[in-house]
């Protein structure tokens, strides 16, 4: 190789610039083309994925509306408000069934991201769905599908404290088989770190969000309840 390089006349900078510039332009064109083509499809896929997850964690839900919830108040998605996105889910009659929230915590290997449902009536968690994780297959990843573990979240106690500033009892994962209170989560044996991460993230999110949900509960009432009385089919203007 080295002899070849010495014998070769120097390539002009212009030729190099021309080649790299040209290739970069072709590259940019192709990427933009594919990006534009796939953008609506990917957005639709994401919407369907969120919808599926929301309907899984809130029982009997058939429609949903997205809100931004912050200590200052509740506003529909789209207005430039700061806060956390919450998904309000309604049943076929247009009544609020529950609110789905996203939360994250560090698991055994990387961040675990879940969506969980909260029922403001019973002040309890109604279900969880793992959105993203890299937990160990066969051990930590059981948090996503182990039926006994998921049963923990059917009616997990999330009652507010007397001054309504946080939870009356912090939600936490306890050692496998030692669950004694309705606000405790029975860990999976062999996956304590992953189980505890779930407990920690629901507790952190619950301490912050449950009081806000209760405070602004009336804001979640969909306009459709009024419309439904007027004879319009329920859920028609819900997304």
């Amino acid at each position: 190789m080295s002899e070849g390089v010495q014998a070769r006349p120097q390539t002009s900078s212009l030729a190099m610039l021309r080649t790299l510039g040209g290739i970069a332009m072709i590259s940019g064109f192709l990427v933009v083309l594919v990006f534009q083509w796939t953008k609506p499809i990917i957005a639709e896929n994401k919407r369907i994925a969120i919808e599926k997850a929301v309907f899984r964690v809130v029982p009997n839900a058939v429609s949903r509306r997205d809100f931004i919830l912050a200590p200052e108040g509740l506003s529909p998605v789209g207005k430039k408000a700061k806060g956390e996105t919450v998904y309000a889910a309604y049943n076929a009659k247009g009544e609020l069934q529950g609110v789905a929230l996203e939360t994250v915590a560090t698991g055994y290997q990387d961040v675990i991201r879940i969506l969980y449902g909260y029922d403001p009536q019973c002040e309890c968690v109604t279900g969880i769905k793992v959105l993203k994780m890299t937990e160990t297959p066969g051990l930590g990843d059981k948090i996503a599908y182990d039926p006994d573990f998921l049963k923990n979240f059917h009616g997990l106690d999330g009652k507010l404290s007397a001054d309504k500033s946080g939870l009356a009892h912090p939600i936490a994962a306890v050692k496998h088989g030692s669950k004694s209170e309705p606000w405790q989560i029975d860990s999976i044996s062999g996956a304590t770190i992953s189980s505890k991460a779930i407990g920690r993230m629901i507790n952190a999110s619950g301490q912050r969000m449950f009081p806000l949900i209760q405070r602004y509960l009336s804001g979640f009432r969909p306009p459709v309840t009024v419309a439904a009385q007027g004879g319009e089919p329920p859920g028609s203007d819900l997304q």
Partner: protein
Amino acid sequence: MTTVLHKQEQVTLDTFLRGIWEENPVFVMLLGMCPVLAVTNSTLNAIAMGLATLFVLVASGTLVSLLRKMIPREVRIATYIIIIATFVTMVDYTIQAISLDLYNSLGAFIQLIVVNCVILGRAEAYASRQRVGAAVVNALGMGVGFTLALLCLGTVRELLGAGTILGYPIFSPNFEPWVVMILPPGGFFVLGGWLLLFEWIKQRRERRTLQAQGATAHGS
């Protein structure tokens, strides 16, 4: 030494088949081990990764071969990487459009196709020196060889590690999956097993031809 001196290869069946058997990127050249070990924990992941790599190989091989006379030597690697990265980005968006679940299970390894040495190796050693036809056929062969190799690993690992193939249960419910097979060590075990098998087949075949030719023909 230079591109001019390289013999232009005639496109034959061998141009295609070489990548599958004789020069299989995984089992013979041991290239691109990162995705081979990382994403072959299920058959579906293996197929998706193999097809994504196949597409990038063929597309980048075509473009590199088309532009081979215009690319100055000094910037050739940079040019190849831009070309490869372009097609990888296209694959990345396309997989997101096809299935978000698949995209999530492949994780960062889609983007990492950019640094897969099978692809850069093909661009440098073959596509930049051969006509488009030969480059495409050779890339196809390599891509199919790579996909088959991933499939070999993915099927065995999913079967032993989860008791399923493509999600369908194969064994009776009493089968206790060997979880280690879908964990990183399982990748090494299964790869080792396949390499052993292929080496054994190769040696046996060589012995057979030797015997058939007689000892005098040896050494040619």
